[in-house]
């Protein structure tokens, strides 16, 4: 069992490290590509500003056109990996490793995915969290399912019962040793791995070790309680298999179903449709204003050509199909997306919060889910950190968009200096405290499960009939 635990965990560690490394590389490549694009545009914009090259005809080719640049170049908002990211993939495989944020609506970048085989997302990754959360209990159960029943079947239980030490003490001691084998193996492998991969995360891994120990004790106590019912070894194995599958799969599936029924996930396309509708409204409004303007000027005999020089961005008199008109429409469309899309986004986040709150409460019914959450939070791949990152990307998007909109509204063209002052994304660890609370709450909950099962085992063993049923 020592070998099995060590080998599965080592394989999982290799898999976890491979996954985090490939994400890291991918994030770096996205960042580099975006930076190169900005640098290339910057050089051209500076040359235009210095009069070395002409302004391109098309607004989308013009590196000085503020609103087009704002919506075509981007600043990459990457979520830095935590020191123990390899421990739990958590939700990270569902999100791209880095998000290129532009001045377009949030729908243009928030829902993009990294390429991956969805079948692999469905099965999940063989990461250390899978071994610790799902397989470790099985290793423990394999060693403990017959801790008492085997003694009875072999006829040695009566001898133990005849000793002056209470039966439950003897059995608890035996059980502790059996639980310690896989748990200690896992902890030692983890400590060694962290010392090799990232020694600075030693404190975090101690927290993992504490969580794994409590979790192991819980499963040991469950095994003792099941043994306490006095079934034969086969019956114990059967009950424990059912207990494991219920805790690891049936309860989570039930929780998912309840949450989905009570608080369905928001309809993400709603935001896109609102923004598209907004864009059409902008065009319609502009066309009406323009048609009215043309009608009025036809009466007075003016034509477009005579007075385009005095037009402003919001002036309906601008030439149809001109750079000025296209720029104006792009700006208005982005502003509309800001008004319409953002409110929907906030509303959807509120729905998600409600959903997560319910899920968070229901999850407490399954030590497996609690343990999973603990590991994800320690690894920095849990929902809290993603939510914090998502909020920071949202705030950054606002500042990026404001930067370009305010300049575009004032008709300011971009030069090299303006490029240098583009907002930069910095991720701040804002949820550490909340995350720590979740981790400790999780450990306490598993501890309570342990105490509950221990009390049950104690009660059952005190009434245990050594002669069997």
């Amino acid at each position, binding site marked *: 069992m020592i070998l099995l635990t060590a080998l599965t965990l080592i*394989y999982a560690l290799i*898999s976890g490290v491979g996954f985090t490394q490939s994400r890291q590389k*991918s994030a770096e*490549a996205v960042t580099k*590509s975006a930076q190169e694009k900005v640098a290339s545009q910057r050089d051209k914009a500076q040359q235009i500003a210095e009069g070395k090259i002409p302004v391109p005809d098309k607004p989308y080719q013009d590196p000085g056109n503020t609103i087009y640049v704002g919506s075509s170049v981007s600043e990459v908002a990457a979520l830095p990996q935590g020191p123990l990211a390899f421990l739990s993939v958590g*939700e990270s495989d*569902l999100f791209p490793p880095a998000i290129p944020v532009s001045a377009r609506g949030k729908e243009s970048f928030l*829902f*993009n*995915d990294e*390429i*991956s*085989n*969805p*079948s*692999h*997302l*469905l*099965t*999940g*990754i*063989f990461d250390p969290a*899978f071994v610790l959360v799902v397989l470790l209990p*099985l290793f423990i159960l*394999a060693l403990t399912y017959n801790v008492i029943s085997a003694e009875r079947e072999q006829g040695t239980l009566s001898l133990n019962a005849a000793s002056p030490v209470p039966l439950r003490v003897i059995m608890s001691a035996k059980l502790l040793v059996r639980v310690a084998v896989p748990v200690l193996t896992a902890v030692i492998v983890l400590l060694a791995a962290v010392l090799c991969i990232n020694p600075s995360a030693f404190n975090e891994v101690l927290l993992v070790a504490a969580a794994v120990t409590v979790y192991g004790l819980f499963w040991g106590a469950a095994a003792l309680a099941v043994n306490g019912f006095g079934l034969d*070894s*086969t019956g114990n*194995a059967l009950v424990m*298999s059912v207990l494991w*599958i219920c805790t690891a*799969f049936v309860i*989570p*599936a*039930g929780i*998912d*179903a309840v*949450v*989905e*029924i009570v608080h*369905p*996930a928001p309809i*993400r*396309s*709603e935001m896109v*449709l609102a923004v*598209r*509708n907004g864009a*059409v409204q902008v*065009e*319609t409004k502009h*066309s009406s204003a323009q048609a009215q303007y043309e009608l009025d000027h036809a009466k007075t005999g003016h034509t477009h050509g005579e007075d385009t020089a005095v037009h402003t961005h919001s002036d309906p008199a601008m030439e*149809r*199909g*001109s750079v000025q008109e296209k720029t104006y429409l792009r700006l208005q469309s982005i502003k509309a997306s800001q008004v319409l899309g953002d409110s929907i986004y906030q509303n959807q986040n509120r729905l*998600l919060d409600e959903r*997560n709150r319910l*899920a968070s409460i229901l*999850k407490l019914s399954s030590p497996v*889910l609690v343990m999973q959450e603990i590991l994800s939070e320690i690894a920095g791949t849990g*929902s809290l950190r993603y939510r914090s990152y998502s909020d920071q990307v949202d705030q950054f998007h606002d500042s990026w968009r404001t930067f370009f909109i305010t300049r575009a509204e004032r008709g300011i063209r971009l030069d090299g200096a303006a490029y240098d002052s583009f907002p930069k994304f910095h991720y701040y660890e804002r949820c550490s405290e909340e995350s720590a609370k979740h981790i400790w709450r999780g450990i306490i909950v598993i501890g309570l499960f342990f105490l509950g099962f221990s009390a049950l085992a104690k009660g059952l063993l005190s009434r245990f009939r050594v002669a069997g049923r």
Partner: protein
Amino acid sequence: MNRAAVIQRIALKEMADHFRESRHRWLFGISIVLTICAIMFGTVQIKRFNAEQTASSTMDAQIWNSQGAKNPHAAAHFGQYAFKPWSPLTLADPGVALYEGTAIWMEAHKQNPDSFSPARDRGTAGRNATLTLAFVLQKMMPLVIILLAFSAFTKERERGTLRQLLSLGVSPADLFAGKSIAFIVMLGLLMIPALVGTGVTLWIFKDSVSFPLADLVARTVWLVGIYALYLFGWLAVTIAVSARSKTSGTALVILTAFWIFSSFAAPRIMSDLVKDRPNLPTSLEFNTAIAEQKKKDFGHSTDHPAYAAFQDSILKFYKVDSVSQLPVNMRGLSLRRSDEVGYTIYDTLFGQLYDDIYQQDMVRASLGFIIPSLAIEQLSMSFAGSDNRGHFHFVTEVEKHRRMIQTLASEDLIFNAKFGDETYAASPELWAKMKPFVYHSASVDSVAQQQFPILLVLLGWAVLATVLAIRSIKSVKPL
């Protein structure tokens, strides 16, 4: 007493034993409750999801049609959205539906990837397991079989009744046949709620435009067939292990360990092993490859040799000297040409990407003859229409629709816009010609053809398990 009567007696006794045991009654009860919950939850999910998708599609069509007069190419850039409906058989197996995008933006020049995958908002509980028929049939039913049948022979051996039966002239083969029939009947009874539930769901969605009822029925028949093979294999293996094991405990431990490995560990390990066979590109690599190829193959001005050659060919065709003399609009022609060049690139690169994904899936499922969950997962989602290949079919259909929009938009420019007229605007009647996307699913025959190798793999599992069972029965010993 003839053989048939002996087998019948054994089967009836076995069933009576199981129904008498409270542990097994609980097992039946829990299985049935889980199945019913999975059907109810699945039906509610599909109904809600499809209603949302239909509403979104209707709204997008309204937005599209509400565009006023504008340049058709600008409208093509604005594009439409294609919303993916879920097949009613997602009830049987949602497969990767939660991990695929649910909508695709069809815009000019660009085949966009799908977006809005529901899994992102589902949270961690749903990643462990979702309450679906596939979960019940793929994961729970093998456990039910194990718990029912692990002691089929060991119990007789432990009680000493195996020796009695053999001494009475009952052959091990009769014993095997009788017990198998009993288990098959019990499993059949357990399957009734699943079949009835699926039938009711198909009836609810019988008018679906995207998923014809006849095709759904044919897919259901396939699903019944593959699950029968899968579960029969489990039954045969369970009986084989029971026949070979000395004690019930040993049989249970071996079978449970195999079940856990096959159902939970192996799929993850195999996903991990095949992820580089072949390696998938990152989004950045994929998009860069497209952009570079497009840049190489065509341009938007005479600076690009391909554009210049195209313009020359047009001038020659119309026997004129300059673009201004053309009876058609050169910009419209070049946009159409640019799109056509793009189509080849997208077909190649998207085709390659989905072929690579398909290959990974096939490699992953190829060990299904010894790890059955790998084969059943693939086949089940394929026939339910919720696998990667099914999604690729959706992506391909959407792309056809996008191309229709692009062609109509470019042709309007070609034949109606005058040279140098930057203000040309098509009337809203043109938008009405570009109908919203309606999905028509792939036929069951094409699915069966694609999945043929994996069907053989699953058949291999059932055959291997049967051979193992027969060999074990032949060598069964009373002690």
